[in-house]
């Protein structure tokens, strides 16, 4: 047995929230990789039981401060599914517009504040800002525009209060939305600049082999609804999720690990969306992707930063398109009367597929809730990727290896505040 070394960091910086990771090496071989996860959704599932179904959008919005709209949207989709209600097209498009704001905000935060410093050799955004203040200001401005869009449509920029089962409490006026056109046009330019910027980073050659899973919708690049598709031929309705995806309890973790029913590992998020739906991007986003050298499928987790940048362009374009075509709905919400049954809802959170399932009684009381966030679904793919990355770089010293592991995890933009608390990174060498 060789010399035993232990590497530890107290927490993984620049991942949302904190979690824990351990890598164990024996004689230069990776024996064990473990990403420990703590899951608030379990707490929220319990909290939802016994509550009125109308409360679900407000309660689930609080699971994550970064993607409240994703939680609200999957929740309302599921509850409208239970009750057999389909919202009008203007209401659906307004939801899509709100969701664009969240994509802009979340992607700008991750690309600029959390991920770009990895590629440019900075400890974090503060250090990056000392040398490249204009880049960081561009990221903050993009993020602010996303926040503003969320505030106008959602009523507040965080934990939007305007979303309800059946639609919205109040629909914004055309004038309110028109005021967003100019900032969104500036944001679109900033997003194009973001693609050029990130495309110039250096990327190690990397490819993950797992199945890619994303929503898909014939009417557009799927965000607020869709069927669940994979790059290997899966094409199912949200109601069939539990038949094809399995959550399994892993002893070392409080989290449930997801995998395909046949045992395969899968990945959701920007790489999967881009790979499956790229031909539905806007012209400007497609051009930007081509100029950046992106090709579908894209299986390189490091290049997810470029894909997020392309999605920033798309989200700005799509928001502008939706605003230009906006007609105030006759009523901001359709009536939803409770029906006993089970409903299923999905949407594309910035980090990937977010699945909700609710069982309610005839009075509309929630009897049972299941929430599967994207980071839980990606956990196994992240662990596999870490295993492979460490295997290929065992010769690195502990600090360099730790840095590479952190960057590998950040490639997936894990929403640790949904999925993990206190990330300790520990490398043990035997």
């Amino acid at each position: 047995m060789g010399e035993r070394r232990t590497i530890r960091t107290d927490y993984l910086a620049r991942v949302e929230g904190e979690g824990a990771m351990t890598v164990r090496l024996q004689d230069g071989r990776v024996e064990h990789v473990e990403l420990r996860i703590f899951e608030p959704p379990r707490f929220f599932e319990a909290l939802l039981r016994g509550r009125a179904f109308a409360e679900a959008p407000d309660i689930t919005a609080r699971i994550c401060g970064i993607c409240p709209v994703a939680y609200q949207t999957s929740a309302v989709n599921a509850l409208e599914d239970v009750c057999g209600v389909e919202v009008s097209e203007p209401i659906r498009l307004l939801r899509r517009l709100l969701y664009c704001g969240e994509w802009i905000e979340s992607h700008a935060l991750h690309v600029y504040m959390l991920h770009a410093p990895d590629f440019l050799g900075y400890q974090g955004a503060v250090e990056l800002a000392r040398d490249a203040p204009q880049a960081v200001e561009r990221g903050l401005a993009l993020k602010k525009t996303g926040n503003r869009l969320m505030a106008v449509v959602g009523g507040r920029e965080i934990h939007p209060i305007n979303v309800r089962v059946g639609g919205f409490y109040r629909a914004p006026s055309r004038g309110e939305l028109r005021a967003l056109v100019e900032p969104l046009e500036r944001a679109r330019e900033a997003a194009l600049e973001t693609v050029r910027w990130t495309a110039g980073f250096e990327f190690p050659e990397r490819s993950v082999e797992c199945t890619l899973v994303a929503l898909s919708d014939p009417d557009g690049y799927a965000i607020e609804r869709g069927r669940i598709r994979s790059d290997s031929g899966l094409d199912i309705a949200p109601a069939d999720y539990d038949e094809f995806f399995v959550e399994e309890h892993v002893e070392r973790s409080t989290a449930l690990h997801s995998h395909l029913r046949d045992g395969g590992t899968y990945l959701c998020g920007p790489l999967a969306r881009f790979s499956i739906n790229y031909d539905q991007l806007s012209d400007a986003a497609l051009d930007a992707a081509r100029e950046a050298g992106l090709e579908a499928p894209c299986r390189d987790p490091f290049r997810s930063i470029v894909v997020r940048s392309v999605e920033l362009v798309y989200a700005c374009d799509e928001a502008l398109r939706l605003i230009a075509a906006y007609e105030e709905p006759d009523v901001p919400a359709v009536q939803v009367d409770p029906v006993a049954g089970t409903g299923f809802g999905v949407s594309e959170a910035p980090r990937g597929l977010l699945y909700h399932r609710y069982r309610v009684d005839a009075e509309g009381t929630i009897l049972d809730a299941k929430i599967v966030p994207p980071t839980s679904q990606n956990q196994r793919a992240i662990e596999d990727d870490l295993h492979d990355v460490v295997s290929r770089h065992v010769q690195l010293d502990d600090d360099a290896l730790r840095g590479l592991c952190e960057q590998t995890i950040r490639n997936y933009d894990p929403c640790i505040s949904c999925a993990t608390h206190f990330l300790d990174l520990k490398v043990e060498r035997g």
Partner: protein
Amino acid sequence: MRSRRLDGGSRSAGAGFAGAEAGKRRVVVAIGNGYRRDDGAGLAVAARLRGRVPSGVELVECEQEPSRLIDACDGAAAALVVDAVASGAPPGTLHRFDASSDPVPARLFRSSTHAFGVGEAIELARVLGRLPARVIVYGIEGAAFGAGEGLTEPVATAVERAADAVLADICNPEGDLAHA
């Protein structure tokens, strides 16, 4: 970096909040997550301040994602930030930092569930020249940060003291805090 525990001890002079340039916006930013037990301490302070802060002082609640505090502070002459912390001090300890010219210890805020730490947000604003001239950070030492509702008892008590301390900073231009 000036850091003091306020419980029990007398408050020595520090850069004042009330002494910010007259006529300019002042802002209180409360950060937290009400579904992560003591991480909701900042929001609980905000709830106690609502309706009690003088006109000209804006109260901003910032749930979970503190990079927003950069925008919240934009153009303000003074900012007062309240958040939960975990430094190993006894639960309920009230820390007060003058971050006007020195960084707050970023790792003190590591137990928050925030994506981008309060310390980082303040430093980023400083580097970009967007930090108000006066910045005071209150940190309430938490005990429990797991998923759940409700503050632990020592933190709930500290919230009352923190709200009083914040109001003293805001409302007492003649107090010793105003004379840095």
